[in-house]
């Protein structure tokens, strides 16, 4: 990818998001809120892809970073009671950034002890960290503990969500598609060979965690200001697993695939929910056969996961063609 063109594309994308946001200024529709979920999940999946997909560190605690970012950003913005829109924008950006930094610190704390661990162990430890963060948040009464925390300002909109998603995608891709970035993949492929060519596996693994966590934190901040209410339970390992499934489905280390998977997997439960509510359409009775879909949504989801791994473990959306010598 051409260096200058990438930056121009990014700026264009962000500008477009800004324009769309102005156009949709007073729109409150259900689907707009669904789109925020899509954007947030894109950020989460793409950032996790750096850790899991490119660097090969199997992290099951991404939701913990999200939680750190969400609470940090919410606490900061809740201190602000004015209504100056320009100031609001600046404060929001600052709060999101602070949330990202808090989560990045979390990434550092998780990344360093887990360096020597492989595969399954790493998965459980990262899951453990996620749980520890959840339990700690449940014990902080200042942010509501288990009862949750109210977020005063619902500042998340199309611009912030998709603008930041565009930045996330740019950063991850720019990072990986450089000589420096080849190091991530080298570390995943063969740590020992990577060391032998001067690559420091520790530094790459920690970098992956920190950068991945940073964006997860920002996604958390966006989430908090979209839902207006956050609680520790919403950031449990079920959430982490949801994000992991997006990365697996999209193909580890395949950013376009992961984005597509994030979109699809966000829409899937929404679609199933709406399908289940189909009795609200005239002429269809409440006993319509598809109403069971809503209840079995998670069962279908888990079966899909099993079937996917049994049949196409490299992911659904792997488009890369491999050339042979």
């Amino acid at each position, binding site marked *: 990818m051409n260096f200058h063109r990438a930056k121009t594309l990014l700026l264009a994308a962000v500008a477009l998001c800004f324009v769309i946001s102005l156009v949709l200024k007073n729109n409150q529709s259900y689907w707009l809120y669904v789109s925020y979920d899509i954007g947030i999940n894109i950020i989460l999946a793409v950032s996790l892809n750096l850790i899991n997909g490119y660097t090969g560190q199997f992290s099951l605690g991404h939701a913990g970073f999200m939680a750190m970012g969400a609470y940090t950003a919410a606490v900061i913005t809740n201190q602000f009671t004015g209504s100056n829109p320009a100031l609001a924008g600046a404060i929001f950006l600052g709060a999101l950034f602070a949330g990202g930094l808090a989560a990045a610190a979390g990434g550092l704390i998780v990344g360093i002890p887990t360096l020597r661990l492989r595969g*399954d162990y790493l998965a*459980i430890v990262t*899951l*453990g960290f996620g*749980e520890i963060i959840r339990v700690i948040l449940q014990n902080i009464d200042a942010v509501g503990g288990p009862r949750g925390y109210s977020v005063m300002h619902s500042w998340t909109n199309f611009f912030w969500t998709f603008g930041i998603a565009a930045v996330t995608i740019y950063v991850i891709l720019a990072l990986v598609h450089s000589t420096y970035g080849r190091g991530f993949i080298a570390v995943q492929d063969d740590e020992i060979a990577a060391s032998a060519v001067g690559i420091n596996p520790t530094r790459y693994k920690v970098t992956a965690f920190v950068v991945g966590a940073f964006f997860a934190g920002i996604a958390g901040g966006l989430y908090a200001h979209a839902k207006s209410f956050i609680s520790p339970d919403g950031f449990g390992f079920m959430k982490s697993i949801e994000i*992991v499934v997006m990365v697996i489905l999209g193909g*580890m280390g395949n950013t376009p695939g992961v984005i597509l998977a994030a979109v699809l997997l966000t829409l899937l439960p929404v679609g199933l929910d709406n399908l289940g509510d189909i009795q609200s359409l005239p002429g269809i009775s409440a006993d319509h056969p598809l109403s069971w879909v809503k209840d079995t949504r998670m069962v279908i989801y*888990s079966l899909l996961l099993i079937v996917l791994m*049994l049949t196409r*473990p490299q992911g659904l959306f792997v488009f890369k063609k491999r050339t042979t010598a």
Partner: protein
Amino acid sequence: MTEFLQQLINGLADGSILALIALGYTMVYGILRFINFAHGDVFMIGAFAGFYLTPKIAAFLPTPSIWAGVVVMALSMALCAVLGIIIERFAYRPLRRSPKLAVLITAIGVSLFLEYAGQLFFGAAPRSFPQIIPVKPITGIPGLTINTSQIVVLVVTILLLIVLRFIVLKTKIGMAMRALSFNPEAAALMGVNTDVVISFTFGLGSALAAAAGILYAVNFPAIDPLMGVLPGLKAFCAAVLGGIGNLPGAALGGLIIGIVETFVGGSELSTYRDAIAFAILILILLIKPSGLLGKKDIEKV
């Protein structure tokens, strides 16, 4: 002092249940080097099996009674052994040659499936587990509140551990299990039927998890489809603490976590109780990754 004893007994009971589950994890990991994420949910199925079997058994045997308890537990263990074997055969075996990540994700899928199918068929609300054995408080020791159910946990766990030890050390299949855990290829070359031994291991581990499920339900009669999640994770931490792949280690790890957890639960830090197992996990991986009783693994370059 009585406070301490009280917590100790509670902790031992809690730890015994974790130990039984941990044994299943460690056996499977020892042979296949893979964490069976769905194992905690087999624990849950065991409890529900007991829940649905008890009324049927009540037609033949007086409940609550020791015999009813034994029969329910045996049937539940058998059922879950079969479940474990089926899961291995259809979800894990096809992926034996695939990268580890694939089977890990599949295990997560199986786990989610059991949980949500459970919610669908058993209902998400907690159910009350029927009394299958007589639960009476034990009086006589002032200050201590012990129930017969806690004694049952300890006794049954010890019995099962003895049986397990016998199987692993004194039977042919036990020897095959040990051989596989050291070197699968060599074992296969020596005529060990790998598939059968692996199936047996899953069955055995699942049976122990089922026993743990019944014992848990006898002590804490509220059961629900997601009850296996946290105990499953904690039991895995226990297995790692003791040294993954090491059976006495898993039992030891379970007891330690059970006791520490109970003491924390009785102290000012009680709301952090659920995080203790993970904190211990992280600590042991930092200090001695091979676990308390485990040996180091060396990679050849």
